[in-house]
């Protein structure tokens, strides 16, 4: 089956291509990118007039809750939501029940994902049972399909264990992905420690709880020459530490999430538990530091940390409600509205952190739009407005502080391995 995408503006952040081109897809592969490709008979035509045509987006940090909390989300259900958000590849975090610390569970995720519309790459645990005591059988896990290791949701508190993980994982050339938080310092805090937490009388999480662990982890990466990826960076100080480490040749990459460049802790007063996540929303200085970090390239990746929670869990006192918000469906609108429209990012710069960068960090071999590449393609209308409301969000959990917002950037089509998985009536 062949598809031709006509009249679109083709953007490939990997090569810097930004031109009006047509894209020809044959089977699962991009066969040709050129101006004015003639339409053959029997070929499906997609008119991308006014749209940008991008490599399929990659979200390297999602929580699909299966196995264990299928009432919140499943691997297939989450994949459908991701396709709607413009994503053709996602990496699932292993803090499920049970956690993903053996090969059979990695294979389970891969098998389940085959029934869904997009590529799912599992991330397995750094430590057995996520207990932070012994490292997992990383070789077996990589063989099963794990693309990285993380105990996301909690930090590896033991420095010696972190050292061993970084050292041991070197032989597989996969990153250790850290949830950097000194939980003794965050001390059951609820939101960012600062003026807002003081005014609202909420226990604060100081930015230093994140920064001290990032400082430790980059030093351990320097010691071991291991590959470190830091998940969900939220504080400007963290960016400074990572910039320093990169300048010294430490193999470190990092990600931030759209909510950290779109919102500040002030949102907590209005949205209460819908604006509660860990790490917490910080201040305006941090928000702009995320934007500048993305602009300068110190921040490599935008990942959503998509974390579904049931309404009845969120409809509680702020203190008791769980951390986390969904993000797959609002990522593209936020990138377009905040980075491109408001902060003048080029489309290549805005989408590099959602395509080639995560692919390179995890060795996914995707995230590029060129002849011969896998036909993973996302088509976005950057001028079309969307309203985030109950019907727009198809995720079964609707825990998002962006509810009610009108944003630019509508995902029109998502094509995964040559197959339209969202858009055009699907």
């Amino acid at each position: 089956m062949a598809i031709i995408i006509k009249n679109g503006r083709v953007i490939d952040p990997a090569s810097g291509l930004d031109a009006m081109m047509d894209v020809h897809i044959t089977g699962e592969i991009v066969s040709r990118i050129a101006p004015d490709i003639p339409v053959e008979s029997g070929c499906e035509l997609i008119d991308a007039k006014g749209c940008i045509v991008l490599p399929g987006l990659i979200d390297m940090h999602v929580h699909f809750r299966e196995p264990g909390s299928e009432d919140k989300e499943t691997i297939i259900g989450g994949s459908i939501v991701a396709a709607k958000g413009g994503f053709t590849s996602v990496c699932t975090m292993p803090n499920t029940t049970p956690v993903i610390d053996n090969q059979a569970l990695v294979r389970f995720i891969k098998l389940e994902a085959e029934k869904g519309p997009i590529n799912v790459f599992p991330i397995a645990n750094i430590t057995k049972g996520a207990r932070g005591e012994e490292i997992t059988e990383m070789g077996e896990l990589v063989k099963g399909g794990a693309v990285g290791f993380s105990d996301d949701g909690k930090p590896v508190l033991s420095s010696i264990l972190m050292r061993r993980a970084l050292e041991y994982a070197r032989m597989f050339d996969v990153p250790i992905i850290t949830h950097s938080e000194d939980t003794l310092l965050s001390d059951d805090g609820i939101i960012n420690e600062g003026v807002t937490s003081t005014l609202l009388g909420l226990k604060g999480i100081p930015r230093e709880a994140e920064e001290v662990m990032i400082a430790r982890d980059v030093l351990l990466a320097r010691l071991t020459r291991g590959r470190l990826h830091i998940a969900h960076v939220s504080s400007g100080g963290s960016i400074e530490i990572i910039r320093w480490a990169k300048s010294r040749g430490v193999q470190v990459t990092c990600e931030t999430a759209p909510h950290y460049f779109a919102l500040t802790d002030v949102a907590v007063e209005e949205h209460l538990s819908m604006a509660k996540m860990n790490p917490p929303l910080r201040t305006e200085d941090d928000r702009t530091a995320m934007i500048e970090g993305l602009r300068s390239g110190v921040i490599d990746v935008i990942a959503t940390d998509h974390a579904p929670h049931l309404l009845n869990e969120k409809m509680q006192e702020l203190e008791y409600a769980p951390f986390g918000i969904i993000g797959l469906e609002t990522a593209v609108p936020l990138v377009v509205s905040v980075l491109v429209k408001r902060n003048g990012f080029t489309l290549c710069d805005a989408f590099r952190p959602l395509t080639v960068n995560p692919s390179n960090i995890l060795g996914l071999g995707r995230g590029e739009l060129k002849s011969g590449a896998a036909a993973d393609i996302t088509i976005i209308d950057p001028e079309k407005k969307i309203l985030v409301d109950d019907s727009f969000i198809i995720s079964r959990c609707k825990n998002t502080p962006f509810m009610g917002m009108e944003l630019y950037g509508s995902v029109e089509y998502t094509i995964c391995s040559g197959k339209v998985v969202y858009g055009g009536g699907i």
Partner: protein
Amino acid sequence: MLQDGVVLSIFLRERGHAIFLIIYVDSLSGAPITYGFKMNGLKRKDLLDIQSLTTEEISLICQSARYFKDLFTRSVKTVPILRGKTVCTLFYEPSTRTRISFELAAKRLSADMINVAVATSSVVKGESLIDTVHTMEAMKADYIVMRHAASLAPHFLSKNIEASVINAGDGFHAHPTQALLDTYSILEKKGTLNGLRIGIVGDIKHSRVARSDIEAFKRLGARVVLCGPPTLVPDEFKIYDVDISYNLDEILPELDVVNMLRIQRERQKGSLFPSLREYHQQYALTEDRLGRCRSDIIVMHPGPINRGIEIDHRVADSPNSIINEQVTNGVAVRMSIFYLLAGGTPLEEMEKV
């Protein structure tokens, strides 16, 4: 003929407002006394924090509290302003004075009072806050007076229910009725807050009373200084435009009012201060320290007091102390709040009273 203890209440309508008159005979003089109240007080459903009140509303609450104090400290204590209304007190944290104060205020206004004892309710079966309160609403509760250990719990509730929510203290965040009664108590003694130097001493960081007091005192023109160790008085409080001092002896001589906060013993375990002994040495209001204050200083405490820790026995009972009067004023201020929140309720019903 009117007799002592018999209250005649009349509603009149004037320029769109209802006026509520209470007439009774003073037990001492035998003379009839008349009080008139306009029934359009606060144009809001809830009382959540001081921040959301206008300065005029703060003044209004204090002004009408004066009439209610006058009323209920006489022999006739009950007026039918809230007859037919139901007030539920829902306390997720232990409390003596605040809960009793609210209950008395509601009863003096002739409301039906339900106290939900959380420890014996469905809450212990795991019922969520929102379900518990929806149950009360289904039974047509008009006012929910809630104390909760979690900051912003009343705000969360007010967004999701119809009934009026009155915050009786939430986490470290706000205790607006305490701040209003503190403000009223100072007004009663000093006539104004404008230009007064008010010290708040102790665990500011974990105090909802401090946050609400600062807001109310500042609003009425007072100059506020916070005092305690840096672990309990974080720099972030400067956002309120207050001074911060770590030295009680330095600030005491300039104070017109000092509000001593209760120090919670469990804070010591978190290493926020090394021992109660050292805390007492540095920050307790001792007789010796009181001797170095202005002679007309007002000593306040929101209670319950730890005698010998933040305040010495004799100081708490000294002529400068208005700690017990604060409790009396608390009932008057809460009556005033109920009354003003009731403004805009269907008056036809009340006119049949």
